[in-house]
C-alpha cells in the first residue's frame, strides 16, 4: 500500500469492524433459511439438467417438494433417498419426477445414513470436478499467459449467442482479457434458468448453461490463437443467483457479477431472498476460483457521485465482509465502483482520482472492478470517447484491477462490433502511455485530493455506524443506498424463501464449508 492519500488507518479499521458486525447479523438470519433457487442449485450440482415441457427439471422437482410442504428439509434428502431407493442417477430421477412417474415424497426412507452417504459421494465428485476446472484455468494461464492489469473487460450483448461468439472472438483478437455476456433484459426476474442455446434476447443474451459452454469453447479456441487466456464473465444475480453460480463453476466461468444489493436496489428483488441466495452462491464462486464483481458502481447511476461517494465505500466494506463469510478470498473480490462524476463539474477528475486511489489503498489485494462513465454519457460519441479516456487514465494512475471498458455509444445501444475495437484502442493507448505514471505522481499533502478521500472515508464510517445501529434491512428500507427504498417483504421472490427445519441438509454447503475451511454457523435466527 503506497499510502499516497495519508488515510486515517483507524477509520479504515473501524469501518471493517462495523461492517463485519453488520454482515454477521445478516448471516445469522441467512443461516436459518434456504430458497427455492438454492435447492435447485443443489439439484444442478447433483447433475440434474434439462427441461420437460420447457420447464427446467430443477424447477419441477423443487416446486413439487414445495407444494408437498417438505422442502424445509432440503431437496438433497429427497433426491438422494430416491437414488438409494431406485438405483437411478439424479438426472433419471428428476426425469421420472417430471413425467410424474415417480413421487419423491412417496418413496420410503429406509436408511438416512445411506441417503447422506450417497449425497456426500456425489457432492465430493462434483466439487472435485469444479476444482479440476480451476486447475485447468491455472494451467491455461500458465501456458498462454494472461492480460496485464487492469484487465480489459468487454461486453457482448447481441441477444444471439452465435453472434455474441463472433463479437467476442473479434474483441479477444483486438485485446480483450475478459468477455462478459450481458443477460437479456428481465432474465434476473425469472425464477428459472432458460435452457439451451438461445438466439433471441433483449439488450443481452440469456444466461444458459449451453450458452456458457458455447462461449467458453469459443474463448478457449481464440485464446490459444492469440496466446492469452480469455476470461469469461456472466451475471450471477437475480432470482437464480446460486444456480448460475453452479453453472458457472461447472462451465469454467472466471468472473461473475454477484451482488445481492444490486438485485434489491435495481431489480426490486426481495432482500431476504437474495441475501440468502448470495451467501451460498459466493461459496461456490469462491471454490471455483471465480472473481466476483459487486455492483456499487450502480449506486451512482441513480444517486450523485459527489454526494454519495461514501455510500459506495460503505457498501464495499459490507460486501467485503459478506464475501469473507462465504470464504471468498480478497484476491477474488472485484469490488465495484465507477467513474460517474458529472463532466460539467470543475475538478471532477480530482474527485475521481481521490475515490479510485482510496479504494485501491483500502482494499489493496482486491481486483477492483472499475466501471466507466455511463450516466453522463450522451449521444455525443466524440465527447464520450474522451470521457472514457479520462476514465482509463484514472484507472492506470490508481492501479485498478478490472477495467470495464467504456463505449462511446453507451447512451445508445449495446456495443456494435467496432465500438468495442475503439474502446480497446482507447484503453491500450492510455494504459501504454501512462504505464508508470502511478509510480511517479504524489499528491500534495492535505490538498484537494487528499482532503476529498478523507471526507469520503469519514462519511462512510458514519454511515456504517448508522446501518449497524438499525440493521442492514432497515437501512435498505430507508433508502440508504442509491436513493432507492425497498421494503423487507416487498419485491420479487420472497415466496421462494424457506425456513430450514432442524434436519435440513445441503451436502454442497457442508462440502464447500469444509473445503473453504469455513466454520459451521449457528442455526437459529
Amino acid at each position, binding site marked *: 500500500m503506497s499510502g499516497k492519500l495519508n488515510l486515517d488507518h483507524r477509520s479504515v479499521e473501524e469501518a471493517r469492524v462495523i461492517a463485519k458486525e453488520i454482515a454477521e447479523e445478516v448471516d445469522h438470519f441467512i443461516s436459518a433459511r434456504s430458497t427455492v433457487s438454492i435447492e435447485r442449485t443443489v439439484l444442478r450440482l447433483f447433475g440434474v439438467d434439462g427441461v420437460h415441457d420447457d420447464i427446467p427439471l430443477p424447477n419441477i422437482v423443487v416446486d413439487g417438494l414445495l407444494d408437498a410442504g417438505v422442502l424445509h428439509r432440503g431437496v438433497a434428502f429427497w433426491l438422494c433417498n430416491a437414488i438409494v431407493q431406485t438405483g437411478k442417477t439424479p438426472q433419471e430421477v428428476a426425469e421420472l419426477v417430471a413425467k410424474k412417474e415417480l413421487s419423491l415424497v412417496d418413496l420410503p426412507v429406509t436408511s438416512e445414513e445411506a441417503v447422506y452417504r450417497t449425497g456426500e459421494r456425489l457432492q465430493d465428485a462434483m466439487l472435485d470436478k469444479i476444482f479440476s476446472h480451476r486447475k485447468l484455468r491455472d494451467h491455461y494461464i500458465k501456458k498462454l499467459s494472461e492480460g496485464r492489469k487492469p484487465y480489459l473487460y468487454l461486453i457482448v450483448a447481441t*441477444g444471439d449467442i452465435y453472434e455474441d461468439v463472433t463479437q467476442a*472472438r*473479434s474483441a479477444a483478437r483486438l485485446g480483450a482479457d475478459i468477455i462478459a455476456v450481458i443477460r437479456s*433484459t428481465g432474465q434476473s426476474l425469472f425464477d428459472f434458468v432458460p435452457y439451451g442455446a438461445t438466439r433471441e434476447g*433483449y439488450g443481452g443474451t440469456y444466461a444458459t448453461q449451453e450458452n456458457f459452454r458455447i462461449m467458453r469453447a469459443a474463448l478457449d479456441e481464440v485464446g490459444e490463437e492469440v496466446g492469452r487466456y480469455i476470461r469469461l464473465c456472466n451475471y450471477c444475480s437475480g432470482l437464480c443467483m446460486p444456480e448460475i453460480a453452479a453453472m458457472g463453476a461447472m462451465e469454467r466461468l472466471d468472473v461473475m457479477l454477484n451482488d445481492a444489493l444490486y438485485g434489491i436496489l*435495481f431489480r*426490486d428483488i426481495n432482500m431476504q431472498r437474495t441475501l440468502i441466495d448470495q451467501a451460498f452462491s459466493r461459496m461456490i464462486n469462491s471454490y471455483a476460483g471465480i472473481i466476483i464483481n459487486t455492483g456499487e458502481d450502480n449506486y451512482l447511476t441513480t444517486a450523485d457521485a459527489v454526494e454519495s461517494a461514501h455510500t459506495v465505500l460503505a457498501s464495499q466494506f459490507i460486501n467485503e465482509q459478506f464475501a469473507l463469510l462465504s470464504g471468498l478470498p480478497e484476491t477474488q473480490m472485484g469490488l465495484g465502483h465507477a467513474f460517474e462524476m458529472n463532466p460539467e463539474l470543475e475538478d471532477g477528475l480530482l474527485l475521481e482520482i481521490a475515490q479510485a486511489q482510496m479504494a485501491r489503498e483500502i482494499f489493496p489485494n482486491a481486483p477492483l472492478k472499475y466501471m466507466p462513465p455511463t450516466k453522463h454519457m450522451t449521444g455525443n460519441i466524440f465527447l464520450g470517447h474522451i470521457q472514457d479516456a479520462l476514465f482509463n487514465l484514472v484507472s492506470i494512475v490508481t492501479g485498478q484491477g478490472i477495467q470495464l471498458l467504456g463505449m462511446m455509444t453507451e447512451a445508445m445501444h449495446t456495443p456494435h*462490433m467496432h465500438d468495442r475495437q475503439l474502446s480497446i484502442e482507447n484503453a491500450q493507448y492510455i494504459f501504454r502511455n501512462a504505464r508508470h505514471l502511478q509510480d511517479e505522481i504524489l499528491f500534495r499533502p492535505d490538498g484537494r485530493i487528499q482532503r476529498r478521500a478523507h471526507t469520503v472515508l469519514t462519511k462512510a464510517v458514519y454511515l456504517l455506524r448508522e446501518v449497524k445501529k438499525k440493521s442492514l434491512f432497515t437501512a435498505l428500507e430507508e433508502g440508504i443506498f442509491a436513493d432507492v427504498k425497498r421494503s423487507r417483504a416487498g419485491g420479487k421472490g420472497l415466496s421462494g424463501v424457506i425456513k430450514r427445519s432442524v434436519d435440513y441438509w445441503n451436502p454442497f454447503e457442508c462440502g464447500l464449508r469444509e473445503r473453504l475451511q469455513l466454520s459451521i454457523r449457528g442455526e437459529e435466527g
Partner: protein
Amino acid sequence: MTIDWSRIRPYGDTLDDGAMQLSFSLPVPYGEEAREAAKQLVGKMGLIESQVYHMKDLGEGYTYFILYANCTHSVDFSKIHVPKVEAPIMGFEEINQYIRKHIKRKIIVLGACTGTDAHTVGIDAIMNMKGYHGEYGLERYPEIDAYNLGSQVDNEDLIEKAIAYRADVLLVSQIVTQKEVHVTNLTELVELLEAEGMRDRFILICGGPRIHHELALELGFDAGFGPGTLAPEVASYFSQELARRKGLV
C-alpha cells in the same frame, strides 16, 4: 454565401461542399477489396469523392472503416414542418395557479416505467419531489396528485391502477429500445386501453431518450417528450390539455 433554403447540403468548410463523416463495419476481410467495397457502398448512397481514411481489421472476417465523402443529395428546408407540443410552457407557480383557476381540483397523475424496463431515473426526474436540473418534480406541485409506480410495471397493472386512482394523466417511460421493445410496449398499452374503451379517459403521455412528439402521436399517444425534458414542460401540457378537453377554457 447566401443560402438556398430549398437545396440544403452538408457543410464542411465551403458552402455546399457536402462534407460528411461516416464509420461502419463490413463483413468482409481486411484489405484493398474491403476498401473498395466501402467506397462502392457509399457511392450507392449518393456520396462522391469518398476517402477511406482509416481501416481496421476486426478479425473474424470483419473490417471497420472511417470514411469522408461529399453528399450529392440536398433537402428542401423550406418545406419542413415538425409537429410540436403546442401548449406554452409555464413555471411551477403559474401551473398551480392555472389548475386552481381552470380545473378547480387536483390533477391526478400516474407514472410508470413499463414492461421489463427498470430505468427509473427518467420518470423520477419528472415526478420526484427533488426533481431534476433544478426543477421540482410533479410530486412537489400542490395542485397535482402524483403517483410514481416505479419500474417494471405491466401495462395491465398500470391500467388497473389508473382506474383505481381515477387518473387524469398517465406518464409512461420507456428507456430500453433494443429490438424496438419500447414501440411494442407503448403500442400494447394503447391497444389494451382501446380494447376496454378507455382510451379517451386519460391523457396519455410517453417519454424517454428515443421518444419524440411525432413518434408519440404515431403510436396513439397524446404527446411525447424526449431527452432533457423537465417537469414544467409536461405539467404545462397536460393541465392545458385537460382544461381544453373538459371545455374549461
